[in-house]
């Protein structure tokens, strides 16, 4: 089974965020950059399928050169190869343009499955996966929390969590999935895996080298104009709950008079 996993490098969610004074983005100095959390689950899903069906797991990323480190993490987990498309002309690319670059790299490989995280924890957009499915003309299932691939690898049965319900979806392969965190438990890279990953070449391709006509990417439709700190919440009221009855009275008064829900 040929599987492609899309990877993004993002700031560790534990890291404090410093916004550049001009609001153009975040200051990455000293920020720990890691593989997007959901992409670890995507990689794990791919590795488990390879263990069952054979084949290869290829990681693909679009981003700055440093994103190579996130790919190396995936290689250390056990992926077979990794490709990075890095080009200064993509600095202002929107999500749909990134999806186009990924599609151009992935399409010639004719994978049986493309797996993405359900979103990336930096911008939370959840756009690239389904956009990529459209560009590759694949059936899709997003936010997959359970995955069963048929013995003959012709189709998959997945669970998706809706609001208060679970959808059971059957889709023929090839297909594209984006995955939820409760799909699996990502493995830690093993020491031999880390050593092997260090020796692997990760080709870094410009748009031309990836066979992509920069013109065909079009212009971005969505532009991040400004990043700002979230508005500070005014300091709240503090109640000492040593006396539970007084605390309850304060909560009930708040619910009734301030929030007006009682």
């Amino acid at each position, binding site marked *: 089974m040929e599987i492609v996993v899309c990877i993004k490098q993002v700031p560790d969610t534990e890291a404090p965020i410093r916004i550049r004074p001009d609001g153009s983005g975040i200051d990455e100095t000293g920020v720990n950059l890691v593989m997007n959390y959901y992409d670890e689950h995507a990689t794990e899903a791919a590795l488990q399928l390879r263990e069952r069906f054979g084949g290869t797991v290829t990681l693909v990323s679009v981003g700055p050169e440093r994103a190579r480190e996130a790919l190396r993490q995936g290689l250390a987990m056990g992926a077979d190869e990794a490709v990075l498309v890095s080009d200064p002309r993509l600095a202002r690319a929107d999500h749909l343009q990134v999806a186009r670059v990924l599609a151009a790299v992935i399409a010639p490989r004719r994978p049986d499955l493309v797996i993405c995280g359900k979103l990336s924890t930096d911008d*939370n957009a959840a756009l690239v996966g389904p956009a990529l499915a459209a560009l590759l003309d694949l059936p899709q299932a997003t936010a997959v929390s359970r995955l069963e691939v048929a013995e003959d690898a012709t189709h998959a049965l997945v669970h998706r969590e809706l609001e208060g319900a679970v959808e059971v979806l059957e889709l023929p392969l090839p297909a594209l999935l984006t995955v939820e965190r409760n799909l699996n438990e990502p493995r830690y890279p093993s020491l031999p895996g880390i050593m092997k990953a260090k020796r692997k070449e990760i080709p870094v391709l410009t748009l031309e080298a990836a066979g992509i006509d920069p013109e065909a990417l079009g212009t971005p439709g969505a532009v991040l104009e400004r990043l700002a700190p979230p508005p500070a919440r005014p300091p709240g009221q503090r109640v000492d709950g040593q006396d539970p009855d007084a605390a309850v009275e304060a909560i009930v008064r708040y619910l009734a008079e301030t929030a007006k829900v009682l």
Partner: protein
Amino acid sequence: MAGGIWVLVAREDGAVRRLTYELLGKARELAGQGRVAAVLVGGEGGVDAEALGAYGADEVLVLAAPALAAYTAEAYTAALLPLLAQERPEVLLIGSTAQGRDLAPRLAVRAGAAIVTDCQTLAREDGALVAIRPMYTRKAIGTVRLLPGRLHIAVVLPGVFPVPPRRDRRAEVRRVPVPPEVGSRARVREVRALERETVPLTEADIVVSGGRGLRGPEHFALLEELARALGGAVGSSRPPVDSGWVPHDYEIGQTGKTVAPQVYLAVGISGAPQHLAGMSGSKHIIAINKDPQAPIFQVADLGVVGDLFEIVPRLTAAVRRRKQAGP
């Protein structure tokens, strides 16, 4: 009709979701004197389409076909594309539900649209659509501009826009033909309701949420009772999910759901940034925690430092007494 602001009607079990009304109110505001259309995919199925006029729709476009009976991204995309191409709305608002998030990017690619998700404000400036959305675990707020010249698709978080006051007007209903080739390779086998007694989390006005401080799965019953008394839903932070006390669909936060209720009651939740990412958009936050240093108190409007096991049962009783007594 050329132009206008469109709203994709979000449904649950056939009934119109409140989110749809929130979007219609916003669409009415964005449209000014222009037209607002609601798009009802899959047929009326018991919905009074004309009644959407009361929330701001001038027109309801109904797409009915057997292939649209169950939601799939492929069939919905194929059904909507010719309609979008023909009528050329300026903006399409889609609710941020599991289906909305599944459909919108696929549709955006096929329709050559610009798209922004997780919108919590929306405004039009010189033909562009400008949205504000949380980013970086809500440690930053991004302003995203969709450039003019193509369809704008905005995926809007639930609970951020008010339901508009109902007006006494009916919408025109227009049935739109669906191309016969509309279909999907993916097939919905089943939609299984989760056995949860309360309202869905993302739509609840009141969310009572528990964390590690509950100490065990059996104590979630305390929250269930309080939520029932308040007419709300129960959620959790990540530790109870990881410990297997509650299923994953309870989780609120970066790796779970985003909620924006009127009242968020955080019980025994310390307030890790990943949790705040999912709930700090709530209008009123009340926190109960025995640790006075817990970060949750930094976002709480009302912070109670105390023992939840003493406070919550008394609170439930007090809420019940008050409800029985009437307003």
